[in-house]
């Protein structure tokens, strides 16, 4: 029996009609039409489906859609501050070669966003740990770590400047 769930996705309040056994990942992709969140394994092993749920990064393939009732969700489609300007993380992922095939990239950027929201001055090891649940097969991770590190520095410099 399908159920209606109400949740906030990227600041929009939406209703989705889902089967009770549906994952949040499938609900976002199929019912919500937001395919930026990727299905790399569907069993919580690769991190490609990472979204921020109530401030915490989660594998959306391991969350039942009905568990997201009332939740505040941020997906890769909601990372940008404005449609015309990529987030600094996205900009640095492009410039630093932190994305190649791009399939794991949404998961990494969302995981990095959750890290920087929580800890604006992460050490290199904290960055490595924050993305330890995300698999990338193209880059060797170094450029991803550098892109996140650079973003943290730039965001902090910007904040200092503004203060």
């Amino acid at each position, binding site marked *: 029996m399908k159920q209606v769930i109400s949740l906030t996705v990227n600041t929009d309040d939406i209703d989705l009609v889902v089967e009770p056994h549906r994952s949040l990942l499938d609900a976002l992709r199929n019912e919500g039409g937001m395919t*930026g969140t*990727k299905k*790399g*394994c569907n069993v919580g092993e690769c991190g490609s489906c990472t979204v921020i749920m109530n401030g915490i990064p989660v594998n959306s393939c391991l969350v039942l859609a009905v568990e997201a009732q009332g939740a505040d969700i941020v997906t890769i489609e909601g990372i940008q501050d404005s449609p015309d300007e990529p987030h600094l993380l996205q900009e640095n992922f492009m410039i630093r070669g932190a*994305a190649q*095939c791009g399939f794991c990239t*949404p998961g990494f950027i969302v995981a990095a966003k959750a890290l920087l929201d929580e800890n604006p001055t992460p050490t290199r090891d904290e960055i490595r740990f924050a*993305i330890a649940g*995300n698999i990338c097969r193209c880059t060797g991770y170094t450029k991803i770590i550098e892109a996140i590190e650079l973003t943290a520095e730039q965001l902090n410099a910007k904040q200092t400047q503004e203060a």
Partner: protein
Amino acid sequence: MKHSNVEHEKLRNTVIGTSVKRTDLLDKVTGAAQFTADIPLPNLLYGRIKRSNVAHALIKRIDTSRALALPGVKAVLTHENVPRVLHAGSPHPRSASCTKDQYILDNKVRYWGDGVAAVAATTEEIAEEALELIDVEYEELPGLFTVEEAMHPDAPLIHDREPGGNLVLPPVTFARGDIDKGFAEADIIIEGEYEGGRPTPAYMEPNAISCQWDANGNLTVWISTQTSFMVRGIMAEVLGLPLHKVRVLVDHMGGGFGAKQDLYQGEFLCALLAKETRRPVRVEYTREETFLAGRSRHPVKTWLKQGFKKDGTITARQATMVFNSGAYGSHGPGVTNVGTSGLLSLYRCDNIHLEGKCVYTNSPIAGAYRGFGVVQAYYALDIQMDEAAVKLGLDPAEIRLKNAVREGDIAPSEHPVIGHGLEDCLTTGVKLVDWQALRKRPRDTTGPIRKGWGIGCEMHGSSAYPGIKEQGNAIVKMNEDGSAVLLTGTAGLGTGAHTALAQIVAEELGIKFEDVSVVHGDTDIVPWDIGAFASHTTFMGGRVSQMAAAEVKRQLLERAAKILETEPETLEVSLGVISTPDGRTLTVREAVAPTLGVPAPQFVGSATYHPTKSYSFAAHFVEVSVDTETGFVTVDQVVPVHEIGKVIHPVAAAGQIEGGIQQGIGHTLYEDYQIDLKTGRSLNANFVDYKMPLSMDMPPIHTKILETAPDPGGPFGAKGVGEDPIVAIGPAIANAIYDAIGVRFRHYPIKPEEVLAALESQTA
């Protein structure tokens, strides 16, 4: 502009050699990029494949009635109702790799996981349930899981085809000089058996296919493939369609690393399900299926014997390589030829005899995977070079330099090597790490950790010549505002290939990078392409794009010369401005603008290029730590030195090297896709049990790229880089482990329990 590389570009007045922003990335970082499974199709049905749970058997009976009765099931296919057309899984035209040994569905299964039926249903859950309702009765045959079992004279035949004896192809041999004389001249002889496991590419995007037919019987296929024209060709052949009725589309793809060159059964089944139901169907492999029915590297056993003079000179080399092809031929012939013939080179030797075999077994299918045969060959060769250095009391760097392949030596492609790339990599690396000081460093023998350094070398060809007589095509056309469009058939696996091609076109044509767009991924529109593999996309696709751009430039300058009242040969064009020797200028936009109301003609250039092969080189210097209490090996740092000719996009080139090292560390220390050797059942078809390096496992990588041996066969002298890094890293790690603990491993992956056992037997 906020990017420093733009200033750099202006100073050098050139587009190549700068890390322009890749054109595919904005869509990828914002989630807008559509991969195959992201493409919405109204009225979509979900296709799933039922896979065998026995490794070798005949299907006696297959009953689909219960599945068909399930509400929501729209079609069920078995070997009884699909076309029976024998075809190759790796259908490169004019290729030695073409092994016709598979059907869409057969009445025989050859490995645990072989597809036996397919279902289309209104939801994924119903499709899944329907698979369970298909009853299959098997008559089991003896399973042959090792090459020894399969080559036994009494072994049953997995395929009934030539040359028999469960061989995929007749044994290949490569010989040079006089092997007996060579061994007679040797002061010492070293002989060993080396073994390679079964790593898999583990691309992040699982295989996905969608198919839709229109009312006129035209088939559209959306697919994650490296070889869209091969998919078109073989699907047309097997489904009995003319080529113009099959349109293959691929935009972004989530990695392939070689494996997404094959036809996997799913393409045909998806098309047939869509045809039968008259609805679009998507077949999306699960992660487990990408292991079960994917393509791994060929497991290998290499016997290698070499003779050496006291000074390290190699006098003779003899080897036998036996590759395990698994249940189907796939790229077996190519891997056998490329791998075995790889031993002709890297280190010079006048007396060589090599034999290569490729054997069917009831194991997972081995196919094309980054480093294709060469990973296996040079793992053995470069470990044995280290063994020779130890036995002769020579410096491992010295013995490599002494024997390193040089300019003019005949490469495995049968062409002379250009430049001294390998020597340059070795001498540069020796300086970078201060190898001489490392050799003399005091060893810390307190505590459980032992540290060691090792070297691994490689050479790798761009293009699959001579195994495949390759061909690249390109069309470049100029718009009426002076911008240009490149039409290319080459696929973008994620390397940034289309950006590199756009850079090359901009450079050749003399316009800005931002003024070039690239059309790709639609077989109805772009020129034919053999596919993206063999490290040849920038080399061949880049060169032919440059050729097509040069033709447009010729047409452009002819018109500009008339306007400027001069000869076209005197004109220069750069970054959108045409100039005469006496300083007069005309923008490209002005040159193509209408004159007296008459528009400029369509400037268009098309080109075809048949490359041979260029070789890139690398030497990797690696430091490892071995924990003598746990057996665990950690890679502490890698200093990879690569010679790749002209670098088109430095960040993307470095990205290939770092990513290749990541996969190579995995192969050498952790990754092995395993089956139960009694039943053939898959044991670790998931990312928890199949261990790959994660962010916590990766060491610092200090990449050095050299441009000292450019190849005229590539655009502006550029050569390939995609496969090189994964080849050199393996032996470098194995040699570093030897340096750390004095234990010589001749196989991969080198697992902690093996390290511990070896240390125990060392002290016993």
